[in-house]
């Protein structure tokens, strides 16, 4: 194999952020063809990217950190600040 699995994952990650050179693309393709673990890792990296995109689109529906809430004090402080800003 031309380079290590570690190097292959670096190229996989880089390819998600920029265009690889012709040689890099070819070398990565060959590595993925021969290495089933890297090939899985690549599929999973693509999946994670897709999941994050879906997560971003649903940011308002997904109840992040559902077990946390704004404290009563913070609520009151924010309301006071808003009232000061707009005394009407």
């Amino acid at each position, binding site marked *: 194999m031309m380079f290590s699995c*570690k190097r292959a994952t670096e190229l996989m*990650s880089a390819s998600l952020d920029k265009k690889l050179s012709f040689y890099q693309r070819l070398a990565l393709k060959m590595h993925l063809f021969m290495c089933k673990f890297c090939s*899985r890792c690549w599929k999973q990296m693509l999946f994670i990217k897709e999941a*994050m995109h*879906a997560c971003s689109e649903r940011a308002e529906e*997904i109840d*992040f950190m559902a077990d946390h809430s*704004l404290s009563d004090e913070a609520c009151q402080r924010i*309301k006071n600040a808003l009232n000061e*800003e707009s005394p009407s």
Partner: protein
Amino acid sequence: MDYQQLPDPESWVDEQGDALFRYALFRIQDGQVAEDLVQETFLAALRAKDSFAGRSSVRTWLFGILKHKIIDHIRKVSRERPAEDIEKIASFTGETFDERGGWNSRPAEWSTDPSLLFQQREFWEILQHCLSQLPQRLQQAFTLRELDGFSAEEVRKILKVSATNGGVMLHRARLRLRGCLETNWFDHEDRKEQ
């Protein structure tokens, strides 16, 4: 501007405060800062309420403002405290790979069918858990890139790191997230099926 479309500011806090706070906490992982960002968001919204066109919901509008506040905050902190833990981050792949660069713990096969997984609330909880397990700088690099959709070049400028370190951070974040999902979700799924 139709003022009828916007409820009064005090009820914004009751109706939207928790959702905004939770998202800010998810992104910044500091309750005090998250509260401040929510307050700044409401104040900015109040000042800009004439620009609320009613084309989107109040929540979407407020989330849009909050996301800008979060990015401004990350930018500011990165300016004040540039890249202190890159060294630690860079050494991480030692756990993932052996000294010759082979897998220490070989990736398992998972189902990567989005139409199935994205419907499950538990999947999002675990994704969120795994993101929160990343060191803060890695989490920020990764969420700026994949949630906010900044290019890798923009991400490294926001975080004030070199192009090389920016690439290293995204690579580490992806590997860690992969490992965490495998451990917490897909192993667990296998067990359920058996």
